[in-house]
Structures are given as C-alpha cells and as structure tokens.
C-alpha cells in the first residue's frame, strides 16, 4: 500500500509542523499558511478516498488552522486522521 504510506507520511509531516509550533523549539518561524499547505498536500492525495473519515478529519484540521484554533487542537484532529488511516488499512 505505497499510496497509504505516502498519506501517512504526509499526515505525519503536518503533525510534526503543528507540534513544532506547540512545543516551540525556538528555531523556526512557522505560519498557519505553512501548516495549511501541509494539510492541503495530504488532501490532494488521490489515495485518500472521497467521503472517508481520513478526509473528514483532514478537512476539520484545515478549518481549525484557518480559524486560528490552538496548535494542540489541530494536532489532535490530525492524529484522528492518522488513526482513521490506520483503521482503513486494517479493514483492507
């Protein structure tokens, strides 16, 4: 399932960006635009099925980023997307 792996990698990248904001290493200046771009990169993957929970959570994370919700909230929603992706693997 290379497509699913690519999706997991992209979601993990988005999570890492959000966590970097929350944990504040102090060595980067990340903007909500960059986080939104990382989430959109995930949504662009064709492997993520239309109407799936993965897509739903990614959409929620994108909305939360645009609404200026706390980084932990965005991270939690992305973790949910990652979890849903894992569930879709186990259903295959």
């Amino acid at each position: 399932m290379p497509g699913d792996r690519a999706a997991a990698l992209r979601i993990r990248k988005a999570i890492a960006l959000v966590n970097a904001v929350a944990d504040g290493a102090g060595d980067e200046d990340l903007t909500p635009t960059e986080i939104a771009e990382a989430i959109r990169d995930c949504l662009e993957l064709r492997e993520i099925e239309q109407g799936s929970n993965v897509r739903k959570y990614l959409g929620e994370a994108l909305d939360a980023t645009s609404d200026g919700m706390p980084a932990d909230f965005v991270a939690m929603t992305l973790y949910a997307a990652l979890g849903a992706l894992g569930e879709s693997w186990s259903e295959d």
Partner: protein
Amino acid sequence: MRSAEGRGRTLDEAVDAALIELGESRRNVDVRVISEGPDETLVEVVVIDQATGPSGAASPTNGKAEAARALVEGLLKHMGVRAQVTVRTGTDPITLDISGRDLGGLIGWRGETLRALQSVTNVMLGRNLAEGERVIVDVERYRQRREHTVREIALRAARQVKMTGDAITLDAMQAFERRAIHLALQDDPDVGSSSIGEEPDRRVVVGPRKPAST
C-alpha cells in the same frame, strides 16, 4: 535539592564521579558543565526532584495540576491502561508523570502516542488553562530521558566542534529535543546551534559561533 560536583578527564568521567558521590543513576539527574578544558572537565550534577507524594496528589494550592492529573487518570482508565499519574513537583509548566508496567504502547513510535495524549489532554483542559499555558505529559520519564540524552549529545558535539572547528549535523529531532540542545549550548561562548531542514526531518547543526560583526 541534592547536587554534587564531579571532576574528570572527560565529561563522562566527571559525571560518573558526581553520580558515585550522590549514589544516583544517570536517568535521575541533570548535568551542567561548569568548565571544560583539555585536561579536566568540571560538572555539577543535580538530582531531579522526584518528591511526588505516594498518592500522586498535587499540592492543594494547585487546582489546575490536580484537574489535569484527574483527567489523564480518567483517560487512561477508559483506555484500559493501568497506570499511576502523579504531578511532578516544582516544574513549570505543569508536568504529569505516568508510571506503571508495560507502558511502551503509551509512548508509541518516536513518542507519537505520548504526544497525541498530551495534545488531547491540553485540548480537554483548554478552558482551565490560561492563554499559552500547557500541560506536559510524560510516560516513565521518557521525555525527560530524551531531553537528557540529547543534551549529552549536544555537549559531546560541542566538544568535538571545539577540537576540530567543523560543524556537526545531528540526527532529525522533534521540537522539544531541538530546544533542549539550543538551551544546552546557549551560554557556550565558542559553539552555537541552529536548525536546518523541514519537519519532520529538521536537524540541529552544532558549529563554531561566528564572531559578532562590528
């Protein structure tokens, strides 16, 4: 707070000397390099405060910490994880320690599950916390051990940079690990740290500090 100074030819020897005096293991202490020369290294080793009460209850004055502890305890119960949650004393931000048997699954791959648990905890506590205030969740002192490990890596790298004059790029690390490295080297007059690359492959570069431009 118990502490001891240690001397040795190398950083490891100095730390070991202090640990012997304290009767502690490496995972329970914080190390600060006082001086470092070609022949001798002097360190201060401080025992990390582990004075959490047996019941794990927070100080009665800290209602937020107790609320956080009760929340995480409840979450773990729902997850079917048998573990004890205690509030680490004397820390800012509030830090919760989860301890028990076979908690590897709660840490997850590269601490992913632990980080997710921390995110959920902070979201659920949101209303109780002031703006910018956060709760740190640690399992079996995993996070603290990682911070100590990367701090030691930073000090070793700094020593090598001083000897060779060449910059060293470390492995990809998470934000809290990179911060530990930046903090460990911030007072070093000769060696500095910066980060390169993009998440999740962002790496710290330890290199000679450039002289301030006049």
